[in-house]
């Protein structure tokens, strides 16, 4: 093996010299190449801060929001459609104005963002679990199992994700009826998003698994006699998680947008538990009557959230891909 990278040579020399590598976990993270590549990219640092702030605002909504938009006692229809503070006829209580039912828009956005994020996270996790398991099995087993799983994935890829989500949502609405909708909307949304996004995970994991399963550490495990399920879970899974993390981050943004689209189309979250998409849908009705802020501000919040998460995902993809470095 005549060619060794300089990093390897350096590590080997340090190793031979007996340089201790005992460090705390935090110092290790702060000292890692990942963290330095993070600090070098100004855009990423800004995006990370933005994401953190938005997440905090969303998840701490009950404490940071100026009003509780779900508290019927504090809502007055008399406050409906108040413009933002810098415009005429504004009310200083409502920074970004109110919607058609007199709810404070800023608070509604915080709460809406929370629902959007929860739906996003849950659907990403569900899609990842489904996609990773199927991808692992397809890649490791090969043969017919692989063919069946991947053909299903191929067929699904011929439909746009949003169409699948609409389809599943429509079927679910037919089964549960409109009465249970308020209760089940959340779960139906997650299932429909998960079922439309699993393919990407499955394909990526299958590809990496096919590479990993031919490596000698997997063969060593087979020589020891360890059963396939344990080999997949303990040996292959941790080694294919890198690309999965990247997809998951980028998919989080995608899931939030898709959720907003579905809600906007009226098949997502109901107006009683409004997500950002629902808020935009409500505002859409008033766009032409001059009350632009009801649709624009939730729209801006959505754009900001998705942009920040996407920028983070892009950086993660580049940082984990040695070819681009």
């Amino acid at each position: 093996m005549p060619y060794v990278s300089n990093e390897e040579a350096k590590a080997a020399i340090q190793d031979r010299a007996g340089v201790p590598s005992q460090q705390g976990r935090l110092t290790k993270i702060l000292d890692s190449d990942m963290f330095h590549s993070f600090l070098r990219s100004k855009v990423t640092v800004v995006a990370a801060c933005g994401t953190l702030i938005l997440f905090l605002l969303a998840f701490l909504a009950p404490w940071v929001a100026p009003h509780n938009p779900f508290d019927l006692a504090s809502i007055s229809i008399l406050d409906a459609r108040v413009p933002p503070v810098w415009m005429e006829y504004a009310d200083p209580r409502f920074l970004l104005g109110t919607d058609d039912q007199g709810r404070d828009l800023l608070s509604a956005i915080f709460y809406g963002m929370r629902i959007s994020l929860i739906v996003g996270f849950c659907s990403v996790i569900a899609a990842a679990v489904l996609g990773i398991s199927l991808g692992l099995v397809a890649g490791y087993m090969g043969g017919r199992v692989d063919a069946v799983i991947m053909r299903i994935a191929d067929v699904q890829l011929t439909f746009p994700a949003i169409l699948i989500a609409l389809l599943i949502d429509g079927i679910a609405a037919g089964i549960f009826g409109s009465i249970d909708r308020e209760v089940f909307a959340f779960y139906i949304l997650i299932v429909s998003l998960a079922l439309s996004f699993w393919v990407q995970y499955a394909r990526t994991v299958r590809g990496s698994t096919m590479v990993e399963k031919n490596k000698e550490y997997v063969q060593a495990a087979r020589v020891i006699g360890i059963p396939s399920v344990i080999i997949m879970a303990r040996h292959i899974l941790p080694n294919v998680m890198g690309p999965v993390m990247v997809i998951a981050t980028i998919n989080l943004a995608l899931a939030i947008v898709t959720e907003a689209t579905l809600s906007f189309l009226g098949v997502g979250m109901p107006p009683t538990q409004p997500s950002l998409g629902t808020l935009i849908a409500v505002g859409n009705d008033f766009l032409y009557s001059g009350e632009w802020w009801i649709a624009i501000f939730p729209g801006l919040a959505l754009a900001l959230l998705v942009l920040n998460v996407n920028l983070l995902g892009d950086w993660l993809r580049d940082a984990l891909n040695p070819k681009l470095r």
Partner: protein
Amino acid sequence: MSVLDIKDLTVEFPGRKSVFVAVDDVSLSVEAGKILGVVGESGAGKSTVGNAVIGLLQEPGHIADGEIFLHGKRIDNLPYKDKRLLRGRKIGMIFQDPLTSLDPLQTVESQLVETIRTHLPFSKKEAQARAIELIDAVGIPNPEERIKQYPHQFSGGMRQRVVIALALCAEPELVIADEPTTALDVSIQAQILVLMKKLCEERNVAMLVITHDMGVIADITDHVAVMYHGELVEYGKTTQVLGAPEHPYTQSLISAVPRPDVKVERFPVVNYIEKAGTPQKQIDISTHWLGKSRDYEKVVGPLVQIRDLDMRFETRGSIFPSRRKYFDAVKKVSFDVQEGETFGLVGESGSGKSTIARLITGLYHPTGGSILFGKTELTSLTNRKDVLAMRRQMQMIFQDPYSSLNARMRVRDIIAEPIKFHKLASSNAEVRRIVDDLLDHVGLGALAGQKFPHEFSGGQRQRISIARALATRPRFLICDEPTSALDVSIQAQILNLLKDLQEELGLTMLFISHDLAVIRQMCNRIGVMRHGELCEVSDCDQLFEAPKHPYTRELLDLMPSMELLSRANLETV
């Protein structure tokens, strides 16, 4: 006057935390018609010297100090454009891998003509004539026809000849060859080396050959420079340096090269590069864990009997049996392995030796034949419990220490896995104690258990691999090219370790290698394989002294001549 003069060259790679000095104050010179060999192990900085001369240092590496002269003209500080003109014109380059150093989408002719016309004021006709002449000169038959072909129509050795022609096409004064034969089989390596030596003398070209292989150095170089961690430790005439090495590093490097002519009991102590770890205390097999509950049945006769073993892979699948295509990796192979011996399998790449290892361990299922382990027929085992019992008795050590350990697991967990899985210990504390003991026994020390595999060098990783294989208390150990990814001095350490372990634990071994010299040092009996067939099985010494099969004779003839090395060895041992 010398063609290339390197004076006090220092190359640095600034890193985030520290500056890595890849080449430290190296001075060399090459004369026309002579070959200078630069030899060293991985990380020695030998390739960096070549790259610095041709101006292709990888970012962020740069020449921090020193001067490089070509025919008395300084070239290291030339602007990029002038450096580009030097490359190909004055300095030719031969890379390691002939598969990737030719453009697969262009014919050999167009690549040659392009290079010739870039550097020399030739018309297309003249360039074509010259290309044919060059292809003829590097010994490719039928140059007029072959030159119209694409690289994939040439074999590996022929492709390397084309690369050499490319390097020579603008009549360079200096040719840099970076590991020119490492990617080639032994038989082709010998031919290429002869060709390089011949061309160098005929055309009066100075040649810089960078290699890790002492055999190559002994074969063709006039002068040799030995590098160690970026420093030049010894430099002089090849006969002198190899015959009477002065520096202790050169001595240990030469003594670590396995000798094909004489069998030695152990390799001399070669811990110059990497400390072999704490001295291993002798263990008493009757009381030690490794010897405990060796509840294996006694075997009368050979431990492993392989009869008419066949393995064919489907290269093209089809639902119609007649349209399927097969590749026979192993054809009717039969041999026995006696208890306590080391049986060697040797052959060139693709000869099916690794497939046999995988068939015995059950990674592949044979298409025909039988494998008898003790009294158990392995090919007909179906009961999971019986299969596991067999798996426990035979373990395997793999070739690539970088991929044979799961990078996401701590070393301790890697070694504990087989112990826990086969329930060989009663408590976690006992598992822990056994793992620490195993690590200590392979010369790593118990502290190594907390670390991850990437914190170790190749040789240390191979020790971890060995510890993992020992963890099931096997009686039969299969080593599949265990040292071919390692540097020569580390190879010597690992081979010593394997020998010691075998002696102590009474292991039976199947040792697979492409390197005849290594095989000779390790094995009692040897099988020679070619194209999936077993040509010859005989005792170690007999095979080397009086080979029966013509292919064995051919292989033995092709080994780089080690006369110089052998003499040096005799003096240092």
